[in-house]
């Protein structure tokens, strides 16, 4: 066969076999735990059968040989010839390890490797002995045929029966005598004796028992007939080349752009037919976009199939008892994200068993069941996927973490003293900080959790840690559904447009030097901004990117600039831009490899006007501007406790004095912008109050029309504070009275809402505050 075809086929074999072996392990462990389905053994058998057959055709004789031995044992299991013992399960797991290591060697070096698998082969052979003939003292099987798998050619009696081609490996039924028993008896004879036994109870039956057609159907009749005509979700799936999906995704991206252009045009032209057609196009495009994105989705269960095995191995290694529970395995994620979270998840799971779950003795001593519980849970929440890894182990000792961080000079004694536990937990994400008392093979080398966190954040996710000493730890990972289309803030600097992924966005601040003099200040030569008693290190986008010379503007002279508070690597910094345009869903396209050294860009996108805009990589940009590194003075000015609390990702709320002593809080996530308008600019159109805003018309709605029992907002001042909220392509300005603060929800339970715009109430700064979320409002009806 052509070498390049051979190579491609081997690449296919690798993908198919790795996938198959994950499934194999999964089903095998289900058999071990007694939760296997009726088809489990067939699935397992088919995986090995396929690997053997394909490897053989591709000349991979080692893999073929090892798989063959396993196939023989599995065939016996499948036909009910023997039943699975724990020893057998272990041996079969070793088989998948051996196959994986050969496949990996094939992947890396192009050869199957020269590892000696003969102990495994003889173990698998030995296990085929029916009468529990597994005494270790008898390594060599007593029956001659059992050694035959080592030389598969010798064990291939079937071809010999072909009248037309004695050693050809194929044959034709019409070449053979019509009487069935003759040749069949011939080729059943050399097969290892136990193979033809329908029951383990009939070990002495002669091979001839399986010879006649009726008897043979008893031996292996069940599985195929059970299979016939059955269908399930997995089997109705097809394989599609990923490149194909990427291309479709690109086309949909272009369609989205064309749609945006037409929508823009339709809004200007005022032709009712065009408008309704454009809206129809809008709906169809959105659905198509969702549909195509769905094809890139995979259930997270695809990654989880490996976990039962990992949990089993790691807990065995550490002498712990762990039961794994998995919920929501059908939860779907973009395949690139699945790929990216695979390793972090494995690390977290290992960590949970190593550091979280206690030894059976310790558990028993503290009144817990000896068997620890590890829960993997995945579910959707608000356009994100949440993955939780929870254990009922010892929990994290906040005191120890604080002490360790203090000893390492990561925090000051004063910070340690006033750092709440839940913030202290997040110190474990600091590089090099491990509180493991003894270093084990499994984890605890002090590398890991920081890498896990970086990897999660790289794909736009966040990670949160909750723990209670003595009761357990939960890691909660939030990740976006897809990487291909993301919401982004569009900004302008130095005449160029840039897109900033919204996931990094904390808040937008308008720096008004004319105000109370709270402009950009300079701290040891580095620009900072005082934001709510906190010094925020700043980066000027135009200067960082060299769009204007670095010396062009001196800190403090940026009268009336826009500050974007961004979060990267768990820390915040401010990015100063000339203009903040709007937020958009953008289609992320990769940049050419030529730009690989420019870490401040995450890709590019095509805007509604057809021009290209660069997408900023917030972490790369922050590193370039040195606003995150410990060496800079400004980072020292950031309170690490504060940074830790940002990590926890508690919801930020905009606090509003609604008049008459009423306070209301709006989740910052549903606030697009906060504006202050001169009331003289308000106009009336079509019976409602509007204002010309950013090239369009923004309808204005007083808050008391949306929330019952609020007083009329006072119009005593010339200026009105307006919360701009957008959803579904529409925006509305909510007249809110006075914005008093931005706070973090203090974690107290929210009381339920009453179904209006009110979400319920919560306690902020010791007072009960109603939570109002405009997200659910029908903007078109306002």
């Amino acid at each position: 066969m052509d070498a390049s075809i051979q190579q491609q086929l081997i690449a296919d074999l690798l993908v198919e076999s790795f996938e198959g072996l994950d499934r194999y392990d999964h089903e095998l462990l289900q058999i071990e735990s007694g939760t296997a389905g009726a088809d489990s053994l067939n699935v397992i058998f088919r995986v090995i059968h396929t690997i053997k057959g394909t490897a053989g055709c591709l000349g991979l004789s080692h893999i073929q040989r090892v798989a063959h031995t396993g196939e023989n044992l599995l065939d016996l299991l499948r036909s009910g010839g023997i039943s699975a013992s724990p020893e057998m399960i272990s041996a079969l797991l070793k088989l998948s390890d051996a196959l994986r290591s050969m496949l990996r060697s094939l992947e890396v070096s192009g050869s199957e490797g020269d590892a000696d698998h003969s102990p495994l082969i003889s173990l698998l052979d030995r296990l085929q002995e029916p009468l529990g003939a597994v005494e270790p003292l008898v390594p060599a099987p007593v029956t001659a045929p059992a050694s035959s798998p080592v030389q598969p050619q010798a064990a291939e009696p079937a071809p010999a029966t072909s009248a037309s081609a004695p050693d050809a490996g194929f044959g034709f039924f019409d070449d053979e005598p019509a009487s069935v028993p003759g040749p069949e008896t011939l080729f059943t004879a050399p097969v290892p004796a136990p193979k033809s036994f329908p029951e383990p109870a009939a070990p002495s039956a002669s091979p001839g028992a399986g010879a006649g057609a009726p008897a043979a159907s008893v031996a292996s009749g069940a599985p195929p007939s059970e299979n016939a005509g059955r269908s399930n979700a997995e089997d109705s799936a097809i394989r599609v080349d990923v490149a194909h999906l990427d291309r479709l995704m690109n086309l949909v991206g272009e369609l989205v752009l064309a749609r945006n252009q037409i929508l823009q045009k339709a809004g200007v032209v005022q032709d009712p037919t065009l408008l309704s057609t454009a809206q129809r196009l809008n709906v169809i495009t959105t659905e198509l976009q969702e549909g195509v994105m769905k094809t890139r989705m995979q259930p997270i269960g695809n990654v989880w199939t490996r976990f039962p095995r990992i949990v089993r191995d790691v807990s065995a290694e550490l002498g712990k008892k762990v039961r794994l529970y998995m919920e929501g395995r059908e939860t779907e994620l973009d395949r690139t994200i699945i790929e990216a979270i695979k390793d972090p998840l494995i690390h977290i799971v290992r960590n949970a068993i190593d550091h979280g779950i206690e030894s059976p003795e310790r558990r028993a001593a503290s009144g817990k069941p000896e068997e620890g519980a590890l829960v993997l849970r995945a579910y959707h929440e608000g356009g994100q996927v949440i993955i939780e890894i929870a254990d009922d182990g010892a929990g994290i000792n906040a005191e120890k973490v604080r002490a360790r961080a203090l000893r390492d000079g990561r925090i000051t004694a004063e910070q340690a003293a006033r750092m709440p536990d839940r913030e202290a937990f997040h110190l474990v994400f600091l590089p090099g900080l491990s509180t493991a008392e003894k270093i084990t093979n499994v984890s605890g080398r002090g590398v890991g959790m920081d890498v896990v966190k970086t990897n999660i954040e790289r794909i736009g996710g966040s990670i949160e840690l909750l723990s209670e000493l003595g009761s357990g730890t939960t890691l909660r990972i939030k990740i976006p559904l897809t990487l291909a289309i993301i919401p982004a803030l569009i900004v302008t600097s130095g005449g160029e447009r840039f897109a900033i992924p919204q996931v990094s966005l904390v808040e937008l601040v308008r720096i008004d030097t004319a105000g109370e003099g709270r402009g950009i200040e300079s701290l040891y030569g580095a620009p900072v901004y005082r934001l709510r008693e906190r010094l925020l290190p700043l980066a000027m986008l135009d200067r960082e990117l060299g769009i204007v010379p670095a010396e062009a503007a001196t800190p403090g002279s940026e009268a009336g600039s826009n500050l974007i508070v961004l979060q990267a690597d768990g820390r915040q910094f401010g990015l100063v831009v000339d203009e903040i345009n709007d937020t958009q869903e953008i289609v992320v396209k990769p940049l050419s490899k030529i730009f690989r050294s420019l870490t401040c860009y995450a890709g590019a996108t095509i805007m509604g006007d057809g021009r290209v805009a660069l997408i900023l990589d917030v972490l790369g940009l922050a590193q370039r501007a040195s606003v995150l590194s410990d060496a800079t003075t400004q980072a020292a000015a950031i309170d690490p406790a504060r940074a830790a609390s940002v990590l926890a990702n508690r919801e930020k709320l905009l606090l509003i004095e609604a008049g008459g002593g009423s306070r209301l809080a709006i989740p910052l996530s549903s606030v697009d912008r906060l504006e202050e308008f001169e009331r003289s600019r308000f106009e009336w159109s079509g019976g409602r109050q509007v204002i010309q805003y950013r090239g369009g018309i923004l309808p204005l709605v007083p808050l008391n029309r949306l929330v019952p029992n609020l007083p009329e907002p006072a119009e005593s001042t010339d200026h009105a504070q307006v919360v701009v909220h957008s959803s579904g392509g529409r925006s509305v300005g909510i007249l809110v009275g006075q914005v008093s603060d931005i706070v973090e929800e203090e974690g107290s339970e929210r009381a339920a809402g009453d179904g209006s715009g009110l979400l319920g109430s919560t306690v902020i700064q010791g007072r009960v505050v109603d939570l109002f979320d405009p997200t659910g409002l029908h903007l078109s009806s306002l």
Partner: protein
Amino acid sequence: MPKTIMTVDDALTMRKVISFTLKGAGFDVIEAQDGVAALGVLKGRAVDAIISDVNMPNMDGLELTRQLRQLPAFARTPIILLTTESDPEIKNRGRAAGATGWIVKPFQPEQLLAVMSRVLPA
């Protein structure tokens, strides 16, 4: 006109191995991942020969053979089963189902082509 052969196997790589071998010898090849998929395709078109794996999910190669033999269009079409040396009784069942012949997996490309030249003489 080149002859068309359908290959039925749930293992993608195996389908490709067969497909490459046959295409290299000048055949047209269509693929199906199991018996149900194969039947679906074959209800709409004819092929000159079928090479099918025996052990597949949904519908195995034996059931596929049985069902095809009941269709007038496929009463005589060569059907070759891919089997393994450890499955001697499968051959009995293959014969009973109406298959034309068998090939033992793993096989060499020459073996596959030898079978094809026998069932599809030029």
